[in-house]
């Protein structure tokens, strides 16, 4: 189950050369700056770029090779455009059913009722698409794409055109899609917070090529990539709910490096969750602090120390079990604590967010 991407596209002043494979399940983020070619890559997968050469195989089905180019309307995919691209002459329901009506009945794995429920569109069906909010439009665009029962879902910065409130409204739906549907997703984004909430895998792109590729958890903490050095740098950890402390309104989590508590969440015991820990929220102690207001303290080992864009700061990578945490501390603290690779320390985590 893989998506094989071996593509070559030349345009004046730009060249896209991709030669890689990504998992045929879960969410793969195509991540990079504007102009790095991530949207173009997505369009190549969709068959919207006619001049691309190469080979494209999606979970065993060849969509393009030396002597074949399946046109876009014959590829079993769903595409969610940045601006939604809903049809203004159709109602919400008309938009949702546009693609659904065009696939053979036997291939309709996803049903309209299911999608309207999943995306909370029940009350909007008869509305005109020009009358609903940006966030609602984007949900319709996702529903419309899902209703073609796609073999792969392509999403081009579906949240980029939305304000913060609409974004917050739509992210839970995206996470539900991730959890409840087994369709592989290629997700284009340049927002690391979005990606670290949703993606499992990442293609880090630069100048029309893949610079790094791998599990999201790994890539966002790699010191040779700009992600770990960004202002909002964070680590992502997979954890399990172990219980609740109702008296203090806390939920207890466990991961391979220790235990964490977060604000009370309505989650069942032993549910798997993903937590995000910002580099600026991790402090380092040489000994286990006894009297601290910070609840989360896990034993860790210094992996390495690297320069930060800010001259007064350094970035310390910590091994916590099999996971990696990032910690941004001042250069003075680094000297004071005499941190070296291999030093055993305690990581104090001021804030943990379940994503």
């Amino acid at each position: 189950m893989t998506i094989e991407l071996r593509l070559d596209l030349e345009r004046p002043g730009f060249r896209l050369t991709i030669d890689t494979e990504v998992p045929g399940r879960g969410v793969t983020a195509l991540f990079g700056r504007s102009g790095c070619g991530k949207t173009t890559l997505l369009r190549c997968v969709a068959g919207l770029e006619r001049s691309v050469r190469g080979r494209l195989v999606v979970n065993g089905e060849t969509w393009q090779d030396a002597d074949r180019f399946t046109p876009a309307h014959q590829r079993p995919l769903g595409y969610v455009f940045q601006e939604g691209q809903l049809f203004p002459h159709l109602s919400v329901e008309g938009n949702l059913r546009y693609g659904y009506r065009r696939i053979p009945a036997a291939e309709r794995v996803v049903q309209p009722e299911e999608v309207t429920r999943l995306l909370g569109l029940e009350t909007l069906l008869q509305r005109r698409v020009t009358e609903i909010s940006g966030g609602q439009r984007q949900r319709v665009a996702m529903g419309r794409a899902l209703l073609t029962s796609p073999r792969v879902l392509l999403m081009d910065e579906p949240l980029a055109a939305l304000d913060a409130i609409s974004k917050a409204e739509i992210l839970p739906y995206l996470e539900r899609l991730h959890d409840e549907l087994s369709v592989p997703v290629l997700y284009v984004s340049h927002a690391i917070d979005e990606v670290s909430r949703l993606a499992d895998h990442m293609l880090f792109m630069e100048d029309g090529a893949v610079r790094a590729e791998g599990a999201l958890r790994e890539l966002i903490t790699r010191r040779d990539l700009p992600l770990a050095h960004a202002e909002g740098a964070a680590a992502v950890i997979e954890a399990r709910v172990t219980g609740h402390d109702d008296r203090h309104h806390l939920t207890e989590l466990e991961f391979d490096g220790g235990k964490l508590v977060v604000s009370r969440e309505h989650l069942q015991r032993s549910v798997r969750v993903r937590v995000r820990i910002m580099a600026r929220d991790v402090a380092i102690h040489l000994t286990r602090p006894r009297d601290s207001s910070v609840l989360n303290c896990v034993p860790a080992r210094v992996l390495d120390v690297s320069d930060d864009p800010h001259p007064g700061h350094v970035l310390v990578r910590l091994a916590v079990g099999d996971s990696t945490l990032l910690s941004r501390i001042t250069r003075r603290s680094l000297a004071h604590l005499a941190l070296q690779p291999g030093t055993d320390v305690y990581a104090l985590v001021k804030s943990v967010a379940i994503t």
Partner: protein
Amino acid sequence: MLHQWISPQDMAALWLTLKLAAVTTVVLLILGTPLALWLARTRSRFKLAVESVVALPLVLPPTVIGFYILILLGSQGPIQALGGPSLAFTFTGLVIGSVVYSLPFVVQPLQNAFAGIGTGALEAAACLRAGPWDRFFTVVIPLSRRGLLTAITLGFAHTVGEFGVVLMIGGNIPGETQVVSIAIYDHVEAVDYASAHVLSGLLLALSFLMLFVLYAINGRIKMVMP
């Protein structure tokens, strides 16, 4: 009652005019739609030249257009030289002349409408399994309803109002090539102002009605689909 006001010959001219306008509009839609689609999408270097040719009937005197079409269709013309029939002074000849004469009135509104539909909507439709024809009928046509309606109305109304081209290539054969505008001219020449009044009044009312309906419908489409 109508017989008191309109002679059978004028009735025939009126009927012929409407038939000519209807046939011309249909032919123009069939020819003009692909042309307008091409003009709206192409980056070809011939685009400007083609656009200029399409717009020529807007500025040329109708007699000039009629003259060239007469040369083309007439007894010494290239169509006959290639073994075709003589089309001058026939209904078919009138249709050909009218198609040329009203071409910009159909192609330009269509071209504007098609250009207004971004490639985005078409790509979205393609990613929802709609093939090229499917996209044309379910996305392009509904999204260019206003342009289409304008093209039909202007094409029809403009053909109804043509005079010079018809006079040059159709002559003035009652019942065969005599259209209303020429019948009016004849009545005025013969100082039969009463008949001229009736036909002119009918044409005025018809033209007003068509434009009124066009603007009314377009206004509603605009309100519903900005």
